[in-house]
């Protein structure tokens, strides 16, 4: 962080903020647009939001150079790593908006909905570009506050409001823990900047070790809440079940990508001196997440709840990459996140298609006999489930392979074996869905809405999962390249 002299000079390299500026301005434009147009035209805000994301994606690619660039006196960084994770989040948002098109049609104030999605996206993009705890916290809160409202968007539906309230209360608690931890780290190092904290910790030896560890623990716990790592996962099933399904899809990818990206930055830049300590903590978190996610999911009859536990299990796998604490591990996290994005969006697209004539279509029973009516969707759902389970030669297999290989390389053989074991347990509940689709009799009439964009989403995500499964090298190469800014 450069020393700032008065009067403030204009920050250099402000152009790297362009994607964020586009999103911020367009979110406000959509908010106002919704107020001034007639009811029939409100759906336009969805298309404006999609156009915004595409424009932001193009500018993100354009402003990113091979050198990492800073602006706002070193408070904001743009490098390959930030750009890559931003593209993932932009893709998650575009998918989220497409999934919302039909689902949210009957809701009033639809412009607010898309504006909130863009604000959440802005928060996430700010997070992954943070170089210090202040910028990071700003992004975390902008994201979290927007997502709380999105979860409770159907405010006349009781379970939606309940989910939002639970999520809000636990989320605020976690923000408090995060801030408390940051204050400890500031106390022992006198800095908010990740790199300067890293230097201070490396040079301080064992002085103030207890306070530093307390700070590290609280920061990890606060972030673990946000990415629903056990034992901080309690809000996840309720929030996932109560939220409108497109929001569930959005929040199971976007905030996770942002959370893990910033965790990587914190651990790599600020805490290399504490590697032994944070690995010990993350190790138990990973084992717990794997166990809770994969075992509790078996008991779920509601597929959104099942996907919530599935997320907990998957973040357990992602944690393995952090535990490996090596470039391979971090690359594996990016690979995992990329593949997870497509698997999740495809799955939720099909879940949304199940909603019909007053049936939510969220129970496992609702999927019974789908293969006879719509073999295409049934095949796609089958692919998604096999991929999530990690069956070889689908995308999900390479995601799991990469993290487990990295963690075994780093010397945690037993953890790798435990992950493989839990993956095998988890395969049961994914494959059970396939059993319902292919081997059970149809119980309720299917009546799929045939939105062409939804069809395209299902087709695109299925194809990507298969292509990555057969030929994963290009994705892996891109992910390794994206690490250039980080390590």
């Amino acid at each position: 962080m450069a020393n700032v002299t008065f009067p403030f000079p204009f920050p250099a390299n402000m152009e790297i903020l362009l994607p964020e500026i586009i999103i911020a301005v367009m979110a406000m434009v959509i908010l106002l647009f919704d107020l001034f147009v007639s009811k029939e035209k409100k759906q336009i805000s969805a298309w404006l939001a999609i156009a915004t994301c595409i424009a932001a994606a193009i500018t993100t690619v354009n402003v990113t150079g091979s050198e990492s660039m800073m602006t706002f006196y070193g408070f904001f960084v743009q490098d390959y790593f930030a750009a890559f994770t931003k593209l993932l989040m932009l893709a998650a948002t575009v998918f989220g908006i497409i999934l919302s098109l039909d689902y949210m049609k009957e809701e009033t104030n639809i412009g607010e909905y898309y504006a909130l999605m863009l604000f959440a996206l802005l928060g996430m993009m700010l997070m992954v570009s943070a170089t210090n705890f202040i910028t990071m916290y700003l992004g975390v809160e902008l994201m979290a506050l927007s997502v709380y409202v999105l979860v409770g968007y159907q405010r006349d539906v009781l379970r939606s409001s309940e989910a939002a309230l639970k999520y809000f209360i636990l989320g605020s608690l976690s923000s408090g823990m995060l801030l408390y931890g940051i204050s400890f780290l500031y106390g022992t190092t006198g800095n908010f900047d990740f790199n300067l904290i890293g230097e201070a910790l490396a040079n301080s030896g064992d002085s103030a070790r207890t306070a530093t560890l307390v700070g590290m623990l609280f920061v990890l716990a606060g972030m673990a809440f946000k990415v629903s790592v056990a034992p901080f996962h309690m809000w996840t099933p309720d929030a996932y079940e109560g939220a409108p399904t497109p929001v569930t899809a959005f929040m199971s990818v976007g905030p996770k990508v942002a959370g893990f990206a910033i965790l990587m930055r914190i651990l790599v830049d600020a805490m290399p001196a504490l590697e032994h300590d944070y690995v010990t903590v993350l190790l138990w978190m990973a084992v717990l997440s794997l166990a809770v996610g994969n075992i509790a999911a078996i008991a779920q009859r509601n597929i959104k709840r099942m996907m919530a536990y599935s997320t907990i299990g998957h973040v357990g796998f992602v944690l393995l990459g952090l535990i490996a604490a090596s470039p391979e591990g971090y690359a594996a996290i990016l690979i995992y996140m990329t593949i997870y994005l497509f698997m999740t969006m495809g799955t939720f697209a099909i879940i949304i298609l199940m909603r019909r004539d007053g049936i939510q279509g969220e129970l496992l029973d609702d999927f019974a006999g789908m293969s006879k009516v719509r073999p295409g969707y049934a095949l796609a759902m089958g692919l998604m489930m096999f991929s999530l389970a990690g069956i070889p030669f689908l995308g999900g297999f390479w995601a799991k392979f990469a993290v487990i290989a990295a963690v075994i390389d780093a010397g945690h053989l037993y953890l790798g074996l435990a992950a493989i074991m839990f993956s095998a347990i988890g395969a049961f509940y994914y494959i059970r869905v396939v059993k319902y689709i292919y081997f059970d009799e149809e119980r309720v009439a299917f009546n799929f809405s045939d939105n062409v964009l939804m069809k395209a989403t299902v087709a695109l995500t299925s194809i990507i999962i298969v292509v990555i499964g057969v030929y994963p090298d290009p994705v892996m190469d891109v992910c390794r390249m994206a690490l250039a800014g980080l390590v």
Partner: protein
Amino acid sequence: MGASYLANEYAPIFVFILIALGMGAAPLVLTMLVAEQNPDDEKLSAYECGFEAFEDARMPFDVRFYLVAILFVIFDLETAFLFPWAVVLDQIGIFGFIEMMLFLVILLVGYIYAWKKGALQWE
């Protein structure tokens, strides 16, 4: 950074705590000594925006109270930001000026939104 450093850094805060305690205690002590005492049950009962002080907590509560309060917080904070900004405006230059204008424009968007949604009307 020894004990003396801490003492020097935090001495003003200690003084501040003492003054705050004094400011809090003074009215209570002074009224006991100086003012005319005329005790009454009603004077001791809690007062809260025209609600009965003791009744079922699960009663419908007009959400407009909350709306007004939250709008007040937003625009009150705006003032809280504007004041220090105005004091140092000559030092922070044109960049600081533009920053604050952006902040005000963003708040203005919120204001238009609240207005158009009817959050400012009591009826």
